[in-house]
């Protein structure tokens, strides 16, 4: 055998082993080993309000006091809800997960926090627990059923009082339209279309069918029946030209800018929009009212609300004590709660009034609500719909209203989707 042949053969054998060695080097038998250094990885939502720097500031006092290094991570995919299952699948799940609530698939992967006394005292712990088990805790409540309005445009249109009933609401939209307001009621694209329609509908829906999710789950009502009335309202607004197909092709950032620019009469959105308003205060007076109900005597109806800054701990964490201590700090420490309220507005009993005047308006409305109800897109607790992907499908179908689809067809498709998904 010549030297050159031997050299080539040896080289080839070595090359053949390179990928094997590389794979062995890259793989890890124990994913949780990454946090064996005592640090805690926290997956968070990163937005204009919730920046990486603000998260780092939030956990800094905890790091200094506990000596635990907290590593803040943004979502690797489009969102935390998309990233967390992917990280679970990859075996590299973070120790603490923020911004989402457990779903049917992820709930078994989470640490049960029920035994911790502080957990049961957190806001909305009862609404988000399943059969008494707490695996998600938060710092407060984000109101969903809010209608922000341009008070100057209302005045120009001759509307003296914010509408309380559907009839008054329709009359207000007609008046705004007659007054030449470009967009009497603004909807936005992607997730927002579905969320906004649900926000508008929470009060009346929960007056008509309290605990409607349970009625759908036990078969005494259908998802289509639950939402067809609001689809009919939206279809009427589309037909009247109060909202156009352009709206549901316009992202929330642009639509919010339109509101701030004074081009929108009414903008349905959650309490977090008050933080945006405070950051870019409009040069007109802003008001907030509750979505309409059938009967004025019932106004304001139940307030749709979600848990603010939800935190969960991964059951597979290598540092359960550190992760749990971090969550306890985030949801019980007064300074940490105040810092989070600065980052993204929410309500909480006993929380110092915010300097944000728009958050004050929201708080005032929230205080007048007779009760709080969780929306349909929440996937946890005794009021969860037993299917995943509700809001994306709801949005996709509801956008058909802007393309001329009938409310009955959209409602029927929603029911058909639910029945199929429920079967698995």
């Amino acid at each position: 055998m010549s030297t050159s042949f031997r050299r080539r053969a040896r080289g080839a054998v070595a090359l053949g082993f390179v990928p094997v060695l590389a794979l062995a080097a890259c793989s890890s038998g124990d994913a949780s080993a990454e946090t064996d250094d005592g640090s805690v990885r926290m997956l968070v939502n990163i937005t204009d309000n919730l920046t990486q720097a603000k998260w780092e500031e939030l956990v800094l006092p905890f790091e200094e006091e506990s000596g635990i290094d907290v590593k803040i991570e943004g979502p690797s995919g489009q969102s935390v809800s998309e990233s967390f299952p992917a990280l679970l699948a990859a075996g590299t799940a973070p120790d603490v997960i923020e911004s989402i609530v457990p779903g049917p698939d992820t709930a078994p992967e989470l640490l049960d926090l029920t035994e911790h006394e502080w957990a049961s005292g957190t806001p909305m712990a009862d609404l988000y627990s399943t059969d008494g088990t707490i695996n998600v805790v938060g710092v407060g409540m984000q109101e969903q059923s809010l209608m922000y309005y341009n008070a100057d445009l209302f005045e120009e249109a001759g509307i003296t009082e914010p509408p309380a009933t559907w009839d008054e609401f329709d009359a207000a939209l007609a008046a705004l339209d007659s007054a030449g307001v470009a967009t009497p009621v603004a909807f936005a694209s992607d997730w927002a279309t579905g969320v906004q329609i649900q926000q508008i509908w929470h009060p009346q829906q929960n007056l008509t069918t309290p605990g409607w999710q349970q009625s759908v789950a036990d078969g005494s009502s259908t998802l289509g029946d639950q939402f067809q009335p609001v689809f009919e309202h939206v279809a009427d607004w589309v037909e009247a030209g109060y909202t156009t197909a352009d709206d549901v092709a316009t992202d929330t950032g642009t639509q919010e800018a339109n509101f701030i620019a004074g081009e929108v009469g009414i903008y349905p959105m959650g309490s977090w929009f008050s933080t945006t308003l405070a950051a870019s205060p409009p040069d007109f007076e802003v008001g907030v009212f509750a979505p309409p109900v059938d009967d004025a005597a019932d106004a304001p109806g139940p307030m749709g609300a979600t848990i603010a800054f939800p935190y969960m701990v991964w059951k597979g964490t290598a540092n359960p004590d550190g992760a749990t201590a971090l969550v306890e700090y985030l949801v019980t420490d007064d300074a940490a709660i105040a810092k989070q309220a600065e980052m993204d507005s929410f309500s909480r009993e006993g929380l110092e009034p915010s300097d944000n005047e728009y958050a004050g308006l929201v708080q005032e409305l929230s205080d007048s609500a007779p009760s709080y109800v969780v929306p349909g897109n929440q996937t946890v607790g005794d009021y969860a719909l037993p299917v995943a992907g509700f809001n994306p499908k709801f949005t996709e179908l509801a956008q058909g209203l802007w393309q001329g689809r009938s409310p009955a067809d959209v409602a029927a498709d929603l029911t058909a989707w639910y029945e199929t998904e429920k079967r698995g």
Partner: protein
Amino acid sequence: MARTTTSRRGFVSSLANGLMTIPAAAVYAGLTVVPVGFAVYYSFTRYNGIPSQPPTWVGFENYARVIQDPIGDLRPAVVVTTLIAVVGAFLVNGAALALALLLRRTTPFNTFARVVMFYPHVLSALIVGFLWQAILGPQGAVNNLLESRGTSSLPFLADPDWALATLIVVIVWAQFGVQLVLYLAGLQAVSPELQEAARLDGAGSVQVFRHVTWPALAPTVTVTIVTSVLSLLKVYDVVLGLTNGGPGDATQTWAYEILAVSFANNKVGLACAQAVLLVLVAGILSFTIIALRRRAEEGAEAVG
């Protein structure tokens, strides 16, 4: 003795050559064969992708659901994908070939123009989507310009038909750079002597293209059609950035359905069944195109 030495040397040479293929084979197996194998396996299971909750064998249940499509979500996506693949492939190849013919001569301007034409392909598809959304959205640059001139705006992304047409045009813009390079390479290989001979025989430019250039380009055309159809079949990122599948489900593609709907809802088994069917369709289409193009390629060999 000499024969034994030669035979041994041949064996060692073959062994060395075989061993040299191991790295490539290992990478191919590790990055393609193994994942596809897992996808096929998961397609027969109910699985949410979480390792601690093992897959449950359900046989052909996922495939039955895809084919029955009880809530009509995949069928529209297949129609959208077919339209993108067919119309897009024609437009990509037409634009790439036309530009390649214009830019075939190497001059400073043509070199610059080739870089400009290829540039969209360098951009991330997601960025391309967001970029064109900013240009063609309801309050995008084009509509703002139209409105400032007193013209009504155009529903590029707001109307389902317009949104689909816009999506196809944007995808073509983003993808034709690669096909342009392939056509330019193919044109370099066309015999200048043959073209010159045809001209001397009195053929005009169109006749030279039709009877000499086009037949000689046949192998390139096959490659560009197959590669463009394959990339158009799995288009996803541009959709995400430009329309996110909307309005409604007007621009949801097959790949979007797999990645943004099934996978996003932790339906890994169903997503894998949809993906396996997409791979099968892509394979069948590729082999069909290659088979249909064989006659044209034989003509190219004759011209060559």
